[in-house]
């Protein structure tokens, strides 16, 4: 058993899911390498401030301060017992080898088992002006504040859906930044109808009520059931235009916009590791298929928001659960009572999540109104009109085909920003169910790779001939 357990496990990601997975594995004798992109563990949700910053955990993480401190403490204990590789991006997986990108260069790392806890990122929907300087994703706006105590503007409009919308607006207010308003695309009635399901995690529902009350008390305008029409400005944001439920157009002066329509799993590595994805109807996004206990593919496990968007508390639980699955596959019997506890807690959070999804439907219909000249893929400067014309001409039924025909999703971000919006556009225009048009495939390198670092890894005989043959001076 000891020998089996000493085989090498790599955990990718050091948010709540990765930390809890690594912790459970180390406690049971596994030899673990913990890799993450940030300088310190914590992930995005519990991101630690840079050295020299002195804000308290309460200031940084609010109601989640205790959880954040617990995860940080667990990470601190863990680092002494694992091979810890911060500031490192995994950009490819081939068979049982990870390809790493560190500041010092490219390296490979083989694994016997892999736990992916790669987290999530914002979903955005294009509207005129969304690529103006001063428009940030909602999560990005929160990170700026949490990490480096920066506000994205002096007078910020918050646009989108979900509990994060009110939370970030509340955090900006508390930090002393100007909040121009909260523009929630979901109507009050929609939220009210979903309330019973949200009571399965009543403390989270109650928090939302508190944030709203605080914002109202500070005279921050809160709008519900709005449709954002455009962001105005020349070179920077000057105003946001919305249509209110009564049909009137409302304009608010602002110098920054935080835009977010929920989260999407960062599932590219899971796909490269052989996992399948499946459509999640409530969130209109793709999640990673697993066996109910975090098994994605042979010797590949997954946890946290990188698998399914359930939030930080669930991430700790799914991280531990994925670790137990791995240990079980290596012959260790997991404690039944603990697994039952995890499953019960997760059930409650999943119910809460379905309530949230019902309360904050992704307003994809607003794409129908977006003018042709609006940018869809900002990396490749593909407009919504380009995509519409391509769809009409070639009648593609798959988002990867549309990508091939009009370049949307081909740029630096590999379609992370425009992928879901492109799929919605295709589905609407062709009259196809959204799940049938698929999603952009994850491909290596999942993040950009510097030429010079790649060149260093060339085979010696090729490097030798390239340098000898190309770098010399030639007489004319």
């Amino acid at each position, binding site marked *: 058993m000891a020998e089996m357990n000493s085989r090498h496990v790599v955990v990718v990601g050091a948010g709540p899911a990765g930390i809890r997975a690594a912790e459970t594995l180390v406690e049971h004798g596994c030899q673990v390498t913990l890799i993450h992109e940030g300088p310190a563990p914590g992930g995005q949700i519990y991101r630690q401030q840079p050295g020299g910053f002195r804000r308290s955990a309460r200031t940084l993480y609010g109601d989640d301060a205790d959880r954040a401190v617990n995860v940080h403490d667990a990470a601190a204990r863990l680092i002494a017992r694992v091979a810890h590789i911060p500031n490192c991006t995994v950009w*490819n997986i*081939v068979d049982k080898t990870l*390809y790493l990108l560190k500041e010092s260069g*490219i390296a490979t790392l083989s694994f016997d088992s892999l736990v992916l806890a790669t987290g999530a990122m914002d979903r955005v929907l294009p509207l005129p002006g969304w690529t103006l300087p001063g428009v940030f994703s909602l999560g990005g706006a929160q990170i700026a504040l949490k990490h480096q105590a920066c506000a994205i503007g002096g007078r910020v409009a918050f646009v989108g859906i979900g509990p994060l919308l009110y939370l970030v607006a509340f955090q900006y207010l508390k930090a002393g930044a100007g909040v121009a308003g909260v523009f929630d695309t979901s109507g009050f009635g929609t939220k009210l109808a979903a309330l019973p399901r949200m009571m399965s995690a009543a403390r989270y529902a109650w928090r939302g009520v508190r944030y709203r009350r605080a914002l109202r008390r500070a005279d921050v305008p809160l709008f519900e059931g709005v449709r954002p029409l455009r962001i105005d400005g020349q070179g920077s944001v000057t105003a946001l235009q919305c249509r209110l439920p009564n049909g009137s157009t409302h304009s608010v002066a602002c110098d920054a916009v935080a835009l977010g329509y929920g989260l999407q799993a960062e599932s590219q590595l899971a796909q490269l590791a052989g996992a399948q994805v499946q459509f999640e109807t409530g969130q209109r996004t793709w999640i990673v298929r697993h066996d109910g206990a975090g098994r994605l593919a042979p010797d590949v496990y997954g946890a946290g928001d990188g698998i399914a968007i359930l939030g930080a508390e669930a991430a700790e639980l799914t991280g531990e659960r994925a670790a137990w699955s791995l240990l079980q596959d290596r012959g260790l019997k997991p404690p039944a009572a603990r697994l039952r506890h995890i499953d019960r807690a997760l059930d409650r959070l999943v119910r809460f999540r379905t309530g949230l999804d019902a309360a904050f439907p992704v307003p994809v219909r607003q794409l129908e109104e977006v003018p042709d000249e609006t940018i869809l893929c900002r990396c*490749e*400067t593909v407009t919504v009109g380009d995509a519409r014309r391509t769809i009409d*001409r*070639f009648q*593609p039924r*798959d988002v990867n*085909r549309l990508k*091939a*025909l009009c370049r949307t999703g*081909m*740029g*630096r971000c*590999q379609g992370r920003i425009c992928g879901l919006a492109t799929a919605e556009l295709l589905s609407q225009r062709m009259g196809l169910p959204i799940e049938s048009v698929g999603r952009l495939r994850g*491909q*290596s*390198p999942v993040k*950009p*790779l*510097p*030429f*010079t670092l*790649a*060149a*260093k*890894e*060339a*085979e010696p*005989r*090729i*490097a030798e*001939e*390239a*340098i000898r*043959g*190309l*770098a*010399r*001076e*030639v*007489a*004319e």
Partner: protein
Amino acid sequence: MTETVHADVVIVGGGTAGVSSAYHIAQRGKRVVLLERGYTASQASGVNFGGVRTNGRTEGEMPLSLRAKRFWHKLNDYIGDWCDFRISGHLEITHDEKEMQVMEKWSRMAEGHGQVSELLTPRQLRERYPWMSRGIIGGCLVPDDGSANPRLMVPTMALAARRMGADIREHTEVISCEHDGIEFTVATKTGLSVRAPRMVNACGAWSNRIASQFGEEFPIEPITPQMLVSEPVAVKIDPVIDLCLAGRYLYFRQVERGNILFGRGSGKVDLDACRAYVFPVNGFNGSCVATNLIPDLRGLNIIRTWSGIDGAMPDSEPILGFSQTVPNLVHAFGFSGHGFQLGPATGAVVAELVLDGRTATPIEAFRVGRFATAEQPDRKLA
């Protein structure tokens, strides 16, 4: 649901060769049905490098390549779109004296076929291409070569073929085909059945799957030429460029946005899953040659890699001509990683073969029977 369609010609395979054949057959007013398992140009035809070159072609390929060139230069007239086709010139460069002699020889050969080319000295290279490393000792430029967007070319040609009446069925996988002495019957997974007196096998790397149903077998190997692309680069690189180094080519071109596409090496193929897998080491080797050749790349990123599956023959020449076992079956496959430019002429030749029984374009180098062994008689039909 079963459906039987009668046609003059049935084509299996919706890549460059198949779609171009459908185009030219439809242009002659004949009824043609094309069956494609996925989308048109799903594999190498749609995700290749996009080079449109005569430069460096073997003597055997020159007539076909030059015929294709005439089509390319009027692409918009023929298919109603330029598909990003640009006459930018194609330049072969080298750091090796022996390679230079090969280029000189090629240039003379090409001249005999009426293809103009220009041999460049180091000084000319430096004046025209200041971004290029000083190790390059010479090159051969074919000014009327260029590049096009492979993702658009074949799908656009398919639209043009459809406008002329070609029946192009995507997502229609062939499960069996047979010949009853008069007609071919091709059955598909969707229930569609096509009957036609003439048939074209244009299935690229999968072509043996059709050929073997008629007792033929070819030494075709799947290849997946690997591509990668940079972020937009400020330096301007006009021609499409090939450099042979350490026994393999690095080929590259810059697109309008400024990104540079590179190709080098071949990855791994899963023919059943229709997937091509990229080998990281090919990207490393390519990056090494590229950064030494184009110092301006330093500081920039690789943003994407990809590949598609093609079929390669042992002598790198395609198979193009009549089957040796069954009448009125034309094979057009095995383009060995350089069939994109040839595509328009390939289809024209296929149309002539199936409709007229012969073509004026010399295709001797692509003889169907050239790999036949003693056990497999060379001319069963003769």
